[in-house]
C-alpha cells in the first residue's frame, strides 16, 4: 500500500467531482491511499498571482507547510492549476531561501517550510510513480477500438524549468497511459494549445474560438473522444461544445473524459460509478467503439527522418 498526500482543490468538490471520485476509485485498485491535507486552503488560482506576489506564494506555501505535517513524501494534485501554483511556489521557495523565509513569516503560526514534500500532478504520479506496467496489469476490460486525442493543456508540462516533467511542447505521458489501457492515441498536434482557460467567464468568445480549434483538430485526427487531466480544460471543451458547434456550424459530439475515468473503465469499475451523466456531451457514442473490430491501430510513429538509421544489406 502506497500512501500519498492529496490536495483536492476547489474544483474537485464542484465541476470536476467526477475527476476526484474516479481518481479515488482508480487509486484504490492500484493500492494507493490518499490522505487529504488537513485544513487545506485555496491555491490562489489565477486571481492571486495577478494581484500580489506575496499572496500568490503565501496561499500555496501554507498548503505545503501543512503537507509536511503528514508522513508522506509526495503530494499529488488533481487540478492542473492548483498543481501549477503549488509547484511554482515550491521551486521558487527551494531556490530562494530568503524569499521562503519572508513569505513563511506571514503564515508562521502554521509552521516552518522545510521543502521536504515533492509536488506532482496526478498525471505525473500515475506515469512516474505507478508506472505503465502496474496500470496495464490492472486492466480487465481493455478499451480496444477507442481512439482518443490526449489533450494536456498549457499547465501540466510547462514551463519546463518548473515542472520537470515530460515534453513542454509535445508530451506523451497521457498517450502512453491510454495505450496501456488498450485505447489508441491519435496523432494530435494540438496537445498543448491554450483552451482559453478562465476567460470562459469573462470573454467566452475567446474560449469558443480556441477550444473550437482544439475540437476541430481532435476530430481531424480521427479521435472519438478527448482525454484531459485538467478541470478547466474539461469544462471548456465539454460545456462550451454545444455553443461552439452552433457558431461554427460543425458537428463534433466529442466527449471529454478525465484520464482517470478511462482508467476506471478499463479497470472494470461499473459505469454508474464513473459519473458520465455529469458530462454535457453524451459519452455513449464514443464508448460504443470499444471492442469494435478495428483495422490495425494507427500508432503514433516514432520520429524518423527520410532515412532509416540502420544500414541495410542487399
Amino acid at each position, binding site marked *: 500500500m502506497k500512501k500519498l498526500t492529496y490536495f483536492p482543490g476547489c474544483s474537485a468538490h464542484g465541476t470536476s467531482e467526477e475527476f476526484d471520485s474516479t481518481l479515488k476509485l482508480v487509486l484504490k485498485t492500484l493500492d494507493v491511499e490518499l490522505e487529504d491535507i488537513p485544513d487545506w486552503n485555496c491555491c490562489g488560482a489565477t486571481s492571486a498571482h495577478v494581484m500580489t506576489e506575496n499572496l500568490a506564494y503565501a496561499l500555496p506555501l501554507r498548503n505545503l507547510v501543512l503537507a509536511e505535517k503528514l508522513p508522506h513524501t509526495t503530494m499529488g494534485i488533481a487540478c492542473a492549476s492548483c498543481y501549477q501554483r503549488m509547484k511554482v511556489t515550491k521551486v521558487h521557495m527551494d531556490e530562494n531561501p530568503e524569499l521562503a523565509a519572508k513569505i513563511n513569516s506571514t503564515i508562521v503560526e502554521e509552521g516552518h517550510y522545510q521543502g521536504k514534500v515533492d509536488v506532482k500532478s496526478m498525471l505525473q504520479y500515475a506515469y512516474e510513480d505507478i508506472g505503465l506496467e502496474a496500470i496495464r496489469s490492472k486492466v480487465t476490460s481493455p478499451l480496444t477500438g477507442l481512439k482518443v486525442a490526449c489533450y494536456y493543456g498549457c499547465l501540466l508540462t510547462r514551463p519546463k524549468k518548473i515542472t520537470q516533467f515530460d*515534453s*513542454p*511542447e*509535445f508530451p506523451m505521458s497521457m498517450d502512453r497511459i491510454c495505450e496501456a489501457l488498450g485505447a489508441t492515441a491519435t*496523432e494530435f*498536434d*494540438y496537445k*498543448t*494549445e491554450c483552451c482559453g482557460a478562465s476567460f470562459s467567464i469573462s470573454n467566452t468568445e475567446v474560449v469558443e474560438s480556441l477550444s473550437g480549434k482544439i475540437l476541430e*483538430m481532435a476530430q*481531424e485526427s480521427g479521435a472519438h473522444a478527448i482525454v484531459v487531466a485538467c478541470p478547466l480544460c474539461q469544462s471548456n471543451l465539454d460545456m462550451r461544445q454545444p455553443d461552439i458547434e452552433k457558431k461554427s456550424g460543425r458537428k463534433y459530439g466529442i466527449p471529454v473524459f478525465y484520464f482517470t475515468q478511462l482508467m476506471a473503465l478499463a479497470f472494470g469499475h461499473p459505469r454508474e460509478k464513473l459519473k458520465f451523466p455529469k458530462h454535457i456531451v453524451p459519452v455513449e457514442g464514443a464508448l460504443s467503439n470499444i471492442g469494435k473490430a478495428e483495422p490495425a491501430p494507427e500508432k503514433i*510513429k516514432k*520520429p*524518423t*527522418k*527520410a*532515412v*532509416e*538509421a540502420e*544500414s*541495410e*544489406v*542487399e
Partner: protein
Amino acid sequence: MARVGVFVCFCGANIADYVDVPQVVEEVKKIREVKYAVEYKYMCSDPGQQMIRDAIVNNRLTSVVVAACSPRMHEKTFRKALSDAGMNPYLLEVANIREHSSWVHQKDKKAATEKAMDLCRMAVAKSIANEQLFEISVPVTKRALVIGGGIAGIQAALDIADARIPVVLVEKSPSIGGKMAQLDETFPTLDCSQCILTPKMVDVASHPFIELIPYSEVLELQGFVGNYKAKIRKKASYVNFKTCTGCGACWQKCPVKVPNEYNMGLDKRRAIYTPFPQAVPNKPVIDAEHCTMLQKGKCGICAKVCQPGAIDYTMQDEVIEREIGAVVVATGYDLWDPKPYEEYGVGRFKDIITSLEFERMVSANGPTNGVPVRPSDGKVPKNVVFIKCIGSRDEAKGIEYCSKICCMYTTKHTILLHHKVHDSHSYVFYMDIRAAGKGYEEFVHKAQVDTHATYLRGRVSKIYKKGDKLMVRGEDAQIGQVVEVEADLVVLATAVTSPHDNPELARLLGISYDKHGFLSEAHPKLRPVETAKAGIFLAGCTQAPKDIPETVAQASACAAKVCGLFAGDTLKKDPMISTVNTEFCSGCQNCVNVCPYGAIVTDEVPFGHGSKEMRTVAKINEGVCQGCGSCVAICRSMAINLAGFTDPQIINEIVSI
C-alpha cells in the same frame, strides 16, 4: 641607487574618469627611488613614448614604470621605447591600472585611486630589483600544419605552400572540400560552389609543397612555437591508395547501404565509398563500422572485383610524426540539431528539413538531381516556408548568438527554389534581415522582387499537420496579426555551432575556446587570427560563424602570419624563463611533474668539486620553457629562479604594500 621613472596614463577617459591620475602621480613622487613622475593623456601615443625616452636620458633612470592598461596590450610598445632610449627593455614594469582598477571599480573613484596607487608602488618596488635580460634565439622548423581541409584549410595551405613553405594538411574525412563541397550555389553571385572549389582541391593534391593526409586526425602536439612535433593518426582506409586507380568497381558492387553523410542522409552510400564524385583524393575508403567483411568476416566482394588488388582488410591505423613550426586550425562548423523545436513537430513531420538538406536537394549532384521534393511522398513542393533563426538568437532553446550566414543562404534558397520550380512560392519568417556585405542587400532585394518571395517578420509558434500539408502558424509583426501558411515543405535555417570535438582539440593544442566551443582569438580586434599560444592560428568558422569570403580572407591572413613567422632562420623569445641553481637542487623532481610544457628534464652533476659520485638535479630546456613559474612555486629548496620574477622582485612588491 635606483632611479625610477613613473609614467601614469589617462587612457583618454578610460582611466582618468575613475582614477584620480594627478593624485596617483603625487603619491608615487613620495617614494624615495622615484626621481621622475608624470601623467599624460595617451602614454602609448608617439608623444607619450617620446616623454619616456626623454626622461630616461635626462634623468638617468635605471628602471621605468608605466601605469596604464594591461601589459598584454602595450608592454611591447613601451619596451621598445626603452630600447630606443638605450635602456634594456626588461627594466620596464607595467602597472595595470585600467583592467585591474578603473574598469572594475567604476562606482568608487576613491577606492580605485587607492588601488592604482598600490599597483604603482608595487611596480616601482619590483622594478628596483629588475635586472637586464636578453632575448633568446630559438631555431625554427619551416613547415606548417593545417588542421581541416574545408575551404579555410585549403586556402591557408595553398597560400603558405605558394610561398614555398612545406605544408602538412590533415583532414579527418576521406576527402577535402568540407561543407563548401556540399553547397549548390553561393551567395550573392550564385556561382557554382563546386566549380570554384574543386580546382582548389585539385591544386592542393598536386602542389609540390603540400603533403595531404586525408582520413586522419591530430593526436598530440608537443613543443613550442617554431618547434612543434605533431602526432597524426592515419585511420585505416583498408585501401592501398598507391595501387588504387579510383575506378569505382568496388563501390558499385558493395552490397552494404549506409545513409550518405554527404547528402545529409537523404540517400545511401556503400560501405566502401568516396564521399562524392569530385572527391580529392578520389580514392575510396572502407567504413569499418558497416563493412560486413570487417565486422563478420563475410563478403569480400570489393577485394574480388578490385583488379589492382588495392583492398587490404588487415590494414591498421598508423601513427606518424611531423616536425612543424606553426599550426593553422580550420576545423569548420557543425549545424545545430533542431529537435528542441517540438512545437514545430521536428522529428515527427518528414516534410520539415534543414537548410543543408534543402541545399543537397537543389544541388545538381544531389540525391534528387537538383529538384526539391517532399521526403514524405516525393512530390515537388509548391509552397515552401523558410524559417530563420532556428537555434540562433534563441536563448530559451538554442544559443544567443547570431549565426550570421542564415539570412543570406535562406535568400539564396528562395531564389534557387524559384529557379528549379517556377510555379513555387517562398515564404520566409524572419526576425531581422542581416545583409551586411558586398552585394548582399541587393541580393535580398532581388529575392523579394524578382522571385516574389514573401518575407514575414515574426516567429513561427506552431506547425501542425492538416491532410498532407503542414500548417505554419506565426506572427506577422508588421500587420500585428497571427498568420497561417499552408506549406508543402518547411525548411529550417539551423544555427551554426562549433565543431563538437573543438574542446578536445583545444585541449590537445593548448589553446582556449569560448563557452560555445568556438576557438578563441588572441584579441577580438587586433589579433583576430592568432591564438593566445604563439604559432597557432585560426581560420574560418572554428573561430566564429562566417561566410565564405570572410573565411577565405581569414585563411589568407593566417598564411601571411605563418610566412611572417618563418621569415627569419631563428625566432626571438622572451628571456623570462626558469633556471635551476644546481647547488640547491635536491633532485626531488617535483618540478618535472608540474611543468605543463615538459620543459624540465633531469641531469647528473658531481656531488662536490672533483667528486666522482653523481647526483640527480633538474635541468630546464630554455627553448621549451614558457616562464609560467609553476616550478618555482613547487620547489622546496628555492633552487629555481624565474628571470623577470625573481624572489627579490616579488618580495619587494609584497613589502611595498
